[in-house]
């Protein structure tokens, strides 16, 4: 994320207020309050059926909200949609184009439909975007003959056609090979450095962590968390302590819990996990710069750690913590795909404090979330 330099200027590009969409009795999106600032690379996360695409469709005016409203570029999208859409480039789900037209002709049609001069006047721009997605060599090929990855790249080319201020990408790496995924990541970073605001909906948490500076996590239509990635991850930092013997580990856990009870409020939680060798590892939810204090605390009681090292929080861990509250891993559809890797077995040891419960106090908790 270091090479991202969002040109953040405090201007809200997208702001939703109690945005809600119900399909009959099914509430797909519930009271959503999103804020995307200019220059953000905003990751929009959630399992299948969490309401991500529904939200994107509401932002683009494809579907109408049941309640609430969406403000983009300071304009309400219910009455100023055309002006809003002229500033947006979007891919919604798998991009679909006219199958009988070539990639080039499809972009010409979209250019004219996007308010650009029709005909060949914009062929230079079309060539530019085709170059960006490396489809120039296939521009004359009929779209129906494109591979899934090529279709996805043409979708990105179409989204960039008008040089929009906001690029809305719904699962842009679907169907792309690893090289394509890396290319999209680079492209997003490049667009961000040009001052574009990117709204990225993705299942691939690693990708999101690589490119996004802010994220929102959705579950069953409810916004669980929204905020700066670095801050959110800081809240899930842990210190991992390995002792030589299991009795020492248990005693160390007891000491940490005692310290917590005596007022060490920087300790959020502590528990023991089994490592691959079956050995107990003490995991302390605490800022990583407190490692030395933890070491000193144990040493005062003649407990000497064999190993002590910080465990940086990943978006994947955060995501699982937030979305799995009250649910077993893979407890609802899409979870397995999202998690990417299985969660290590958790042995909760602090009575009355479930592992994820502390997250509620971190970065920017959403009031009333998880309803």
């Amino acid at each position, binding site marked *: 994320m270091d090479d991202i330099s969002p040109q953040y200027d*405090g*201007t*809200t590009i997208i*702001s939703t*207020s109690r945005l809600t969409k119900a399909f009959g009795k099914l509430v797909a999106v519930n009271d959503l*309050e999103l*804020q995307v600032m200019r220059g953000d690379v905003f990751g929009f996360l959630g399992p299948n059926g969490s309401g991500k695409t529904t939200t994107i*469709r509401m932002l*683009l*005016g*494809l*579907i*109408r909200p049941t309640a609430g409203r969406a403000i983009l*570029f*300071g*304009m309400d999208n219910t009455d100023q*949609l*055309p002006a809003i*859409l*002229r*500033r*947006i480039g*979007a891919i*919604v*789900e798998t*991009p*679909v*184009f*006219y*199958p*009988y*037209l070539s990639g080039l*002709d499809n972009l*010409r*049609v*979209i250019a*004219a*439909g*996007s*308010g*650009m*001069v*029709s005909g060949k*006047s*914009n062929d*230079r*721009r079309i060539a*530019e975007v085709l170059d960006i997605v490396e489809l120039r060599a296939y521009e004359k090929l009929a779209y129906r003959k494109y591979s899934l990855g090529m279709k996805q790249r043409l979708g990105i080319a*179409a989204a960039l*056609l*008008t*040089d*929009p*201020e906001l690029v809305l990408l719904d699962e842009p790496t679907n169907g792309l090979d690893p090289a394509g995924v890396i290319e999209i990541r680079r492209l997003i970073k490049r667009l961000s450095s040009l001052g574009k605001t990117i709204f990225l909906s993705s299942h691939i948490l690693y990708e999101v962590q690589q490119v996004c500076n802010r994220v929102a996590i959705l579950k069953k239509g409810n916004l669980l968390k929204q905020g700066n990635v670095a801050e959110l991850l800081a809240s899930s930092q842990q210190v991992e302590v390995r002792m030589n013997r299991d009795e020492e580990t248990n005693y160390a856990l007891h000491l940490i819990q005692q310290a917590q009870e005596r007022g060490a409020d920087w300790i959020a939680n502590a528990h023991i996990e089994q490592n691959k060798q079956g050995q107990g590892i003490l995991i302390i939810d605490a800022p990583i710069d407190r490692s030395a204090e933890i070491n000193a605390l144990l040493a005062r009681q003649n407990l000497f750690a064999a190993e002590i090292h910080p465990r940086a929080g990943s978006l994947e861990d955060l995501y699982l913590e937030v979305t799995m509250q009250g649910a077993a891993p893979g407890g609802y559809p899409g979870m397995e795909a999202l998690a990417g890797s299985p969660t290590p077995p958790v042995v909760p040891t602090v009575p009355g404090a479930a592992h994820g419960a502390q997250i509620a106090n971190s970065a920017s908790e959403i009031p009333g979330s998880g309803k």
Partner: protein
Amino acid sequence: MSSIPQIPAEQAFPAPRRQETVVMGNQSYLGVLLRLIGTELYKIRRRLMSKVLSIVAIVIMIGFFGIISIGSIFVLASPEATFLPPPCTSNIPVGTPCLDHSPTQAELDQARERALDSISSPLRLPNSLGTALQTASVAGLILIIILTGTIVGGECSVGTVRLMFTRGPTRTQFFLSKIGALLACIALGVIILVPVGILTGALLNLFTGISVDFSFFTAAWLLHNMLKLLIVMLGLFMYAMLALCLSTLGRATAAGVAGALVWWGLETVLGGILVLIGSSIGSSNPGSLANFIKAIPDYFISNSIGALSQNQDHYINPASQASSISDLQAIITLVVYLAVFIGVAWWVNQKRDVTN
């Protein structure tokens, strides 16, 4: 929300500056609409199906004139005596023309010429115009329904409607662009097809050796035939709008094509059945119910279009019978249909959520 820095919209969001390679066009409502119509026509032009439909329409037109010319060839190939009245015998009913002497060569030639003139008249102007218009209205109707169903329903079934709805034009502009493109296709189709028919007829007429008498060509004839041309276009447009409405409602090509063709077929069948029912009720119990049932087909699309056309024929040639449906009634009927078809399709297009 309250924590969002409040910056005046015009200050925070000035008009976007794009790269110089992005050439934006006229953003007025009409400018966008015209560009969209152009785009629709471009898409139609690039479809293989449109090319096939155009060829089919031309082949049907040429083929129909070809079939008519077979009659002329048959007359030319048959012995002259075939066209003479039967010899007068006791079996001939009174009043029927018959030949009471051996025909002379002049009489034989004259009989053949009369038969040839009669059978080949649809190949020549002025009748060839009517033949071409009739062919264009029937063949064109099926083809325009297929085209409409494809360009409207196809957008929904393929999913490209999602793409176009997120590009900036309003849904109404997108909807109007379809109607505009269809109007252009109908006008262009009829304007190309009718001369093709007239030309084909004129070429095939050369074999008959009968010359065209241009005495029919007056300003009134031209005016009324121009109106007939417009009526044919209106007829095609009516069914195109029906297909557009059904495709929009059904979100599929098949819904528009099958629905409009079934409607067209039903009008013919149902019209006949209703008149029969009305007549049978009227014969035993004359009254308002019988008249009502018999009058229902007068409000069908095909009958209204037919009435407008028939009335034009009557204005050109007062000897021909005018339709029982007045021009005003036919026009009001068609306007109501148009308002319903376009209105429903527009409303659905505006209100519908675009999902998968």
